[in-house]
């Protein structure tokens, strides 16, 4: 039985968890002081050695990403933290920044020192105004304590941190769209190459990392790569925050070693909300990752094993759906999200997500025909791997996987001429206004 490893979530219950004082009581800023005595190249090497993989979804090795920056040429280099967390189901970065923002800020300082950056940016999802305030205050505190600003702790290293709030577009979590948005442009993904490491923010070498990736750096540095590797699996080392939502007894953030299984997490979360209703399907990494079913409860939640089982670990956003849920309805809702969030740059996604929504809406209401299923799969085929960025790919995941596992349920809609489920069964509170068929 795997047990929890509270590191980033360790003192969230402290009544003043977000203050610098609480953080400093819990080893805060010791890692920075250590880092400032080290050679930046050694910091990069240690991160590589730890095996830390990006926590923003794709799982790219963090140390390697830092190592891609070209040698310094005297011009600016940037660290940009991706705090746009908008993937349906994902809720780890926002609670972390709310509960213990100094992890991120210390991580920003160490990473900036490691990559030779003197101005770092945190791009925050625009809707979370409360987190914005908290981050601003935390940055202020860090400046006041000399952890940021000029000549940090007498090291000669200068660092400014700017917190920028986005304007409410999921696409701005895609790293190149984020950079365009941060530069004041319309947030749309850029062509790669050039990659951000070569020409990122303001066309300068830039590292873009997820909040959790950066927040993991201080404990990693303080306790060493071996300590970190001592957790998790060979494929995915260390710990991570798993956010459980949906039909579980105790939804929330569970910080555990990588490779823990859904069955274990469900146990830790107190089981299903209605014990009599079995789990029907779940997402391993947010709505953009193909659905899993009860067949997959023992798949180790690490990048490799999840991929092998046909999905993606993504952001470890585990949304749990019990037998009361209509999968067509759930997929229709997600598709609505992608249709709404498609940035509109590329044709397959712009036109395709719109048609996906049209067709799914029809199907959920028992209209349309079986040919529509093929049309859906056909459009998905036109989008997956053909769209400009991964948003389009993500839009196809719930559709193709749900048809794969629940084709009969789609057909049932057609034969019955309506949805076979009562949506009010699936919700926590019955509210006729919000849940209409």
């Amino acid at each position, binding site marked *: 039985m795997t047990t929890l490893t509270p590191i980033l979530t360790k003192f969230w219950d402290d009544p003043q968890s977000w203050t610098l004082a609480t953080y400093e009581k819990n080893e805060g800023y010791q890692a920075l002081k250590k880092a400032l005595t080290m050679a930046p190249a050694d910091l990069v090497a240690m991160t590589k050695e730890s095996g830390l993989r990006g926590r923003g979804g794709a799982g790219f090795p963090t140390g390697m990403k830092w190592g891609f920056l070209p040698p310094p040429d005297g011009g600016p280099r940037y660290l940009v933290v991706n705090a746009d967390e908008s993937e349906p189901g994902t809720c780890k970065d926002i609670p972390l920044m709310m509960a213990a923002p100094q992890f991120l800020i210390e991580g920003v300082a160490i990473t900036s020192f490691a990559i030779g950056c003197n101005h770092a940016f945190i791009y925050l999802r625009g809707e979370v105004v409360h987190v914005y305030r908290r981050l601003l205050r935390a940055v202020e505190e860090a400046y006041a304590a000399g952890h940021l600003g000029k000549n940090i702790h007498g090291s000669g290293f200068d660092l400014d941190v700017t917190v920028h709030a986005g304007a409410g*577009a999921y*696409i701005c979590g895609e790293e190149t769209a984020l950079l365009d948005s941060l530069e004041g442009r*319309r947030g749309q993904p850029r*062509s*790669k*190459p050039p990659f951000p490491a070569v020409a990122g923010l303001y066309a300068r070498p830039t590292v873009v990392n997820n909040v959790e990736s950066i927040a993991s750096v201080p404990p990693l540095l303080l306790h060493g790569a071996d300590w970190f590797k001592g957790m998790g699996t060979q494929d995915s080392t260390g710990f991570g925050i798993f956010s459980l939502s949906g039909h579980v007894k105790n939804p929330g953030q569970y910080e555990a070693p990588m490779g823990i299984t859904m069955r274990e997490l469900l146990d830790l979360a107190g089981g299903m909300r209605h014990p009599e209703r079995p789990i029907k399907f779940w997402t391993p990494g947010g709505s953009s990752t193909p659905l899993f079913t009860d067949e997959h409860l023992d798949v180790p939640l690490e990048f490799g094993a999840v991929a092998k089982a046909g999905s993606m670990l993504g952001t470890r956003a585990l949304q749990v759906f019990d037998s009361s849920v209509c999968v067509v309805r759930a997929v229709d809702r997600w598709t609505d999200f992608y*249709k*709404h*969030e*498609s*940035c*509109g*740059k*590329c*044709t*397959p*996604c*712009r*036109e*395709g*997500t*719109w*048609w996906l929504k*049209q067709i799914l809406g029809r199907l959920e209401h028992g209209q349309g025909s079986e040919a529509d299923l093929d*049309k859906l799969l*056909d*459009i998905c*085929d*036109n989008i997956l*791997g*053909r*769209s*400009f960025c991964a948003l389009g790919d993500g839009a196809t995941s719930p559709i193709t996987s749900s048809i794969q596992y629940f084709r009969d349920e789609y057909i049932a809609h057609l034969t019955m001429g309506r949805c076979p489920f009562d949506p009010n069964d699936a919700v926590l509170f019955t509210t006729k206004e919000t849940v209409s068929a």
Partner: protein
Amino acid sequence: MTLIHEPDLGTPAVANDHDVTLTIDGRAVTVPEGTSVLRAARGAGIDIPKLCASDNLAAYGSCRLCLVEVEGAKGTPASCTTPCADGMVVRTDTDTVHALRHGVMELYLSDHPQDCAGCARGNCEIQALAVQTGAAEVRYGRGGASHLDDTADTSNPYFTYDPKACIVCNRCVRACGEVQGTFALTVQGRGFDSRITAGGTDFLSSECVSCGACVQACPTDALTEKSVIQLGMPSRTVVTTCAYCGVGCSFKAEVQGSGDDTRVVRMVPWKDGGANEGHSCVKGRFAYGYASHRDRQLSPMARDSIDDEWQVVTWEEAITRVAEGFLALREKHGVGSIGGISSSRCTNEEVYVVQKMVRAAFGNNNIDTCARVCHSPTGYGLNHAFGTSAGTQDFASVEQADVMLVIGANPTDAHPVFASRMKKRLRAGAKAIVADPRRIDLVRSPHVEAALHLPVRPGTNVAFVNAMCHVIVTEGLWDEPFVRERCEDADAYLAFIAGPEHSPEATQDVTGIPASDLRAAARLFAAGPNSAIYYGLGVTEHSQGSTMVMGMANLAMLTGNLGREGVGVNPLRGQNNVQGSCDMGSFPHELPGYRHVSRPEVREIYESLWGVTLQAEPGLRIPNMFDSAIGGSFRGLYVQGEDIAQSDPNTSHVEAALRAMDLVVVHDLFLNETARFAHVFLPGASFLEKDGTFTNAERRINRVRPVMPSRVGKDEWQVVCEIATAMGYPMSYAEASHIMDEIAATTPTFAGVSFARLDAEGSMQWPVTQAAPHGTPTMHVGSFVRGLGQLTETVYVPTTERANRRFPLVLTTGRILSQYNVGAQTRRTPNSTWHPEDVLEIHPSDAELRGVTSGDVVELSSRVGTTRLTALVSDRMPAGVVYTTFHHPVTGANVVTTENSDWATNCPEYKVTAVQVEVVTQAARANAGAGADVPADAVAGRP
């Protein structure tokens, strides 16, 4: 001739010495490293479909039609965003790829009108691709929301935006940003709701400058010229040159019909045009309608007295009247009593023939040109310093510049296509120093911000440039090896400029430029490494215009910024052929090629060819002609293509001179202001009817080709030859190219020029000689044309025109984008939609002092005259300076400008006039009722 389709390779060419070789559909293709797979394939004749790509725009990758398979690569990468690599194996013709293209096309067509007008016209790339990909049918049905009911925006006078046909490929948005640099367009909404918008308003009210780059970029019928909608698609192309400004853009005139029935459907900038590389401005692309305007005068006319009505006469009669009139005046008042004025609007061939007529048939050197009123100091100053009366670079040079000093020029309005190139370079990181009293657009516009704006007071340019040189010398920033090796009189100059009277601290009260800013500018310019100077009429039209040109030459020499790409002293010429008309010997003291009439060996060339004896004394300049006319010794004038009564300074003096003459002959498209004083009117041909060449600001000789036959039955050069012949000096050429042959045979810098060579090369920059058979983009490489560069002690002498108690403000003048000079052409096109009248820009505090608000009619007076205009209160102006344009005759800004002029060339001091401004009608408050109290901030604060 048929319609020219220029190939579009999809992504821009890449300059790289290193080549890579890849295999596309089994064929080995070698391209410079960095080239996209799309371009490599298309270049090799493999037609990968594309919609969002165009080879004047950076790859964007949005349409997903160009997907290909690459061995070893995941998925199907977009070929437009995938750079070629050595050994890459690409397949464009597989089943997967075909299925993908089919699927994407189907998605496009699912929201595209089936009965699109563009299809019928064949003005749409979608249509061809639908056929190519076999996606004629759409399986999605037409239910649900779509954009098929969207309404078109027809606000722009020249083109429409019909969102129904739009496929959101973003080409228009990118063209507006990347090519034009205006950033007026964007996409509003996201996903399926994505729509192109001109900043949320209609096109006309937006920031759009109507350059047409978006229309050209649009692959569908969404953005289409109204002329195409009205007339249908063109059927043949004639490549020619814009006749507006000195940028000299090349265009494909796309026309229907032939002979007298030729109709221009649209003008499309030519990709191979050396000056514009496929871009244009609103004037060149759209404002050609004046050529068929009903005001155009198509037959010769004559009258005995200017108080009589005009009588239409035959060409024969007109020419006889002119010839006999001039002969009689010469008989009676002497050989110097007649003369001619040639035009910078006309072709080199026409100008050459006019000066030949004056020198050979009139028998004197009384030939001058309207370049007198704009760039004569450029010729004088640059010739003095370097030995050539021309700019030192080509336009492409700006792409290598690190620092640009822009002075006395407003390129975004007056030289828009070159301004776009400047802005592109500035966006790429070059720095600009803008010296101009007004806060022009280059100071700050989207994605462009000047490093420094120096609000130099009108009339103090020389003090400014001296201060720049002073800092560079006294701070040891000058390029000593360059100066020692390539310049003369260095020690005297260095001692002169180091004098404390030139320091920024000593001159800041004169120039209005804070010493610290000036020092920063000098240091930035000296640091370069490539620093270039671009200037316009704000430099030349001053009493010290020539001195200032030499001052800038000093600055360039001191910092070693000459003789390579990215540097130089670059005049931005006002009119299309200012450079050419000066080259062609249209000054009274110079034969073609800037050779003084006093040089016997030069006269000898022409005397033997023309069979006449030429006068060794320079003739009269334009102002001297006017003075002599009023004095009674100058009696007859031939004026081609220039409206001297409107464009020359001190209008009342000019009118008096014209009235005093016995024979004034006007050769023009329209009955202009000068024609009011003319006795014979000869109708001219528009640029669409001309065969010849124009030479632009970078010395580039461009071909002007007749799109249609002359609408007046004769070419202008032919008329001139007939006048000369009728005067007893036979002149004739079988065709215009023979005139160029004569120019080439007699002018060393044109030795290698002929129509045939120009047609073959596209264009050439003079000198075109045996040593430089393809022309000379960059001059003074290694050594100056005159040998050593001449450093000149440029003493600052303040103009006598100064603000005083009666006339406390300084007026300066300029141009606006949509209008051109005195407006004879542009006012006769829908360009007036943007600029229906000249306005007076005035600083808020000057306005408040006089109770002026925007919209008020004000009286503008100087010591020579008064005029009325509408005021625009604007913080673009510095306090103490007011500004207006001179495009509309009713305003007559030149009614107030004075007779002051450049000491060396008599170029008028248009840029400095002491004036007073008084309210005549209070527009805003008139409605509010007399005596109504208007809050002070409402008066002062209007934009």
